[in-house]
Every structure is written in C-alpha cells, then in structure tokens.
C-alpha cells in the first residue's frame, strides 16, 4: 500500500500544477469563450494588476490605501492622451503612463507616508478624491464627465497591426500582466521586500536596525503608483475609453477588498480575489435572478470571506500541509 506522502502531491508541486493549469486556461480562453467573456477576462487581468499595486502597499508594507484608483486614473488618462496625440504603440503608452503616475506619487506620497494606519488611509482617500475631481473639472485635458473616447486601438509593437479584436487585445493584456506579475513576484525575495515586511510587522524595530523607513515607504508608494498607472494604460487599451469613474472611489475600494479577501501580502491571492470580485459584480450581478444587485453580492462575498477565510484565499491550506508549531 502506498503511503500518504507517495500518493499525495507536495505543496510546491500542487502549486506548480495549479499555476500551470491557470496559465493554460488563460492562454486558451480566447479560443473557448465568446467576445464578451474575453473582454471581461481582460478587465479582470487589469483589475488584478491594480490589486497587486494595492497589495504592495497594504499587504507587504502594512499601509492600507484607498488611493490607488488615483494613480490608475492618472495612468489611464495619460495613456488615452498619448494614444490620441502621440503614439498608438501600447508599450510606449504603458511606460509613459507608469512614469507619470510615479511622478504624481512623489509629492502625494511624500505627504501620505508621514502618517500610518487610519490617517494614512484617509490621506490616500483624499488623494483619490482630488484626482477624481481633477478628472471631472479639467475638461480641456480629461474631457470632464464625458471622459476621453475614440482612443485608437493599441499597437503591441512597432510595425505590427493594431489590435481590433477582443481576443488579440486580451493576449496583449495577458502578456503585460504576466510580465508585471513576474516582476512583482521576483521582488518577493529581495532585501527590499524583506525590509518592507519588517516595516509592516514592526516599524520602530526596523528604525532601530538603521532603516530609514519613511524613505522605503515612499519608494514602494511610487512603485505601486507606477504599477497602478500601467494597469490604467491597459484599461484604456481594453476599453478605448476613459472617464472619471475609472479614477473613482469604487475602484479603489474594490481593489482594497481584493487584497483583504486574497490574504494580505499574497500576490496570487490578490489576483484570485480580483477575479472573484469582478465576476461577482459583473457576471453574477447580471444574472436575471439577481440583476442589479452586484453590490449586494459583493457585500455578501466580503462577509462570507471574513468569516470563513480569516487569512484570505492565501490562507487556505491543503489537507496534507503541516501546521507550524512553536519549538520547545
């Protein structure tokens, strides 16, 4: 008879199998799903990137934020303006959008990282509201409440045709998503991220070791803003339209919710929760029986997640995974 260890997958193997299956599913999706579902999947990937940026601040560094929609919006508007006036090459739009978002984050982040906890949360909320107001009122640039429409389709590389079909745009979004996810995941083992985790766990102790923690917080704040800006650029590539709502409070709240449900600090958890939230709101919420009740379903999802998954999706342990014990 086989032992349990020989018949069951080890945790790393199970993770690899699950990761490969998800990647395969994402790659094959455009061949199996209709255009609406594929476009929804593109939006989920963009939203997952925004959730990752929130996770860099909230999950890794312990800075709960409601302001990432501001940098998402700055990135989206920047990409739209660049696409209409400068270039339709997607990666260029992405780089400029990320750069502008990071630049905007320098002064706003400088103010925000002086605070911690609820005060930081409120400051980021205020930053989000300021950007939202700017999007509404700065009509010559943002188009006001009408937003910017008629954004030309994205060109993935110079010399290649523009991507008109949802499935092709999806592959562009998927490629950028995987690239950025890989970059963020690789950060996980660097001394910089270790320092962020130390700041989250015990900031005074990190200072006592000699870390200028505020500088670290500002650096990750600007990095997270760049990531949110890149997500905003992809959003415009998918939607070919941007409006103030894309920089609004709801987007920020949903992204924070994704990090909470995913399990703070977990990159894959944030992505999975982002998908769950988007599907709940835009797919389940559109079913005939519950049409128009997307927010209610989201509320239910949050309550269920808090009660059944106190450590989020990332805290779910496979049956054979050993629990950690304190040594004698």
């Amino acid at each position, binding site marked *: 008879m086989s032992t349990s260890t020989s018949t069951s997958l080890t945790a790393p193997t199970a993770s690899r199998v699950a990761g490969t299956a998800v990647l395969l599913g994402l790659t094959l999706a455009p061949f199996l799903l209709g255009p609406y579902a594929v476009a929804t999947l593109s939006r989920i990937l963009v939203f997952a990137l925004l959730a990752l940026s929130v996770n860099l601040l909230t999950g890794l560094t312990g800075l709960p934020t409601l302001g990432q929609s501001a940098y998402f919006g700055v990135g989206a508007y920047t990409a739209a303006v660049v696409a209409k006036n400068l270039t339709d090459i997607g990666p260029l739009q992405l780089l400029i959008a990320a750069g502008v978002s990071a630049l905007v984050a320098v002064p706003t982040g400088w103010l925000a990282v002086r605070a911690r906890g609820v005060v930081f949360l409120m400051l980021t909320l205020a930053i989000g509201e300021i950007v939202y107001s700017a999007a509404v009122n700065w009509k010559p640039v943002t188009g006001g409440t009408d937003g910017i429409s008629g954004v030309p389709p994205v060109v993935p590389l110079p010399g290649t045709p523009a991507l008109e079909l949802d499935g092709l745009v999806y592959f562009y979004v998927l490629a950028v998503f995987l690239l950025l996810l890989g970059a963020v995941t690789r950060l996980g083992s660097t001394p910089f991220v270790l*320092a962020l985790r*130390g700041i989250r*766990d015990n900031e*005074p*102790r990190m200072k*006592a*070791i000699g870390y200028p923690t505020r500088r670290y917080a500002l650096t990750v704040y600007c990095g997270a803003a760049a990531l949110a800006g890149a997500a905003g650029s992809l959003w415009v590539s998918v939607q070919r339209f941007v409006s103030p709502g894309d920089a609004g409070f709801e987007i920020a709240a949903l992204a924070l919710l994704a990090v909470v449900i995913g399990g703070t600090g977990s990159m894959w958890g944030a992505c999975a929760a982002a998908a769950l939230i988007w599907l709940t709101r835009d797919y389940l919420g559109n079913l005939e029986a519950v049409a128009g009740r997307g927010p209610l379903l989201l509320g239910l999802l949050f309550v269920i997640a808090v009660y059944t998954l106190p450590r989020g999706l990332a805290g779910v342990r496979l049956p054979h995974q050993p629990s*950690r014990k*304190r*040594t004698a």
Partner: protein
Amino acid sequence: MKPYFQIRGLRSGYAGGVVLTGVDLDVEPGGILAVLGRNGVGKTTLISTVMGFVRPYEGSITVDGREIAGARVDVIARAGVGVVPQGRRVFAPLTVAEHLAIAAPRRAAPGPWTRARILDLLPRLGERLGHRGDELSGGEQQMLAIARALLGNPRLLLLDEPSDGLAPAIVAQVGEVIREVAAQGMTVVLVEQNLGLALSVAEHVAVMQKGGIVHRAACAEFASRPDDRRRLLGVD
C-alpha cells in the same frame, strides 16, 4: 579614560510628564555597565530615550563624542548604537534567515559581526534558519534579537532586560554571549532586574530610583554590600 558613552542631565518622559529627572552616566570604551532598579524607575525610558524613541526634554547623550540626543532612531542606529529590546520583538512572520538578512542593512558599519560569525556564536539559530520568529522558543527569540542587533555592528549595545521570562539555563547562555560580545571591544549597557546576571557580566552598576541614578559602584563592591542591595533594590 574618556567615556565612550556619556549622558548628562537627561530629562525625558511621555506627553509632558517627566520620567527621567536628570540622568548622568559614563561608560568607558569596551566597558559593561549594568543599570539596575525596581519596576517603574525609568530604566526602559532611559533606553528608549537613548535610542530616539522618546525625545528628551533636555540633556546631552554622546557616543564617541557625537551628540545623538533627539536624533531620529535610524540615524542613531547608523551612528553605531544597537538595541536588544525588552520582550525581544522579533518579526513574527519572518524566518530566522530573513531576520539575519534584514538585520544587516547594506550601509551598516563594517565590523567583526558577520552572519557566519553570528551563527558560530549562536549555533542554535543555525538549526532554526527556516523557522519563523513566532515559532521559536523564548530563548531562541532572545538569541535572535541579540543577533539582529549585532549584525548592524554597533559600537554601543543596549540590552533591555534580556533575561526577562527566560529559564535560568538560558539566562546563563545570554550572559556568556554578552561577555563574548564585550570581549570584542563593544561597549555594553545592560538594563536588568536579574541581579545575578547583571553582577556576573558587568564591571560597574548604576542603580536608578525615581528617574535618576542614585548609586554607582564597581560590581565587586556592590556584590559585597548586601545592605546597599537591600536598601536600593529590596533584594539580598
């Protein structure tokens, strides 16, 4: 000899209240000073003020002639002051290996304390490299807290009640580590309620009462005067 660590007229406290009422201290280079006192006399406030966690109202704190009173915590740490806090305060979710990586910031002063040397001094940590901070025993956490402080290669090490909550055998190990560290030339200030540990490692003692230093003596002298110990600390 010119003191390496000197405090003059230090007054500090919390929210306007005064805890330290004018502390004066001197520690020679490479010396070990034990600061003794009952609960609530201001020992931890003294450590917190030196490290910059509490801003002094007035007074001077110098390390190797450099004024650090009122400076930022990270600036004080980079000036060569390390601290082992009361209660260890290890990072619960980080492994021992991650603690050691995090504790040696790139710009830390070069010095004798490297990861390899730390693991040589504290071999138990080497066996626990993959364990998280909250999976360690109290003694292991204390060793980790000491390792974390040493990896910054401080020239002045402050230890706040390192024996707190530890079994006698572990306290003895902590004492050996402190002696070994001091033997390498590091100046040590040990705040302690465990008189046995303090007298076994320190060269001088300073006794605190009501926020000030009320008695100074060489350890051997203090050990030989039970009346002083009873009067100042309430122990034999």
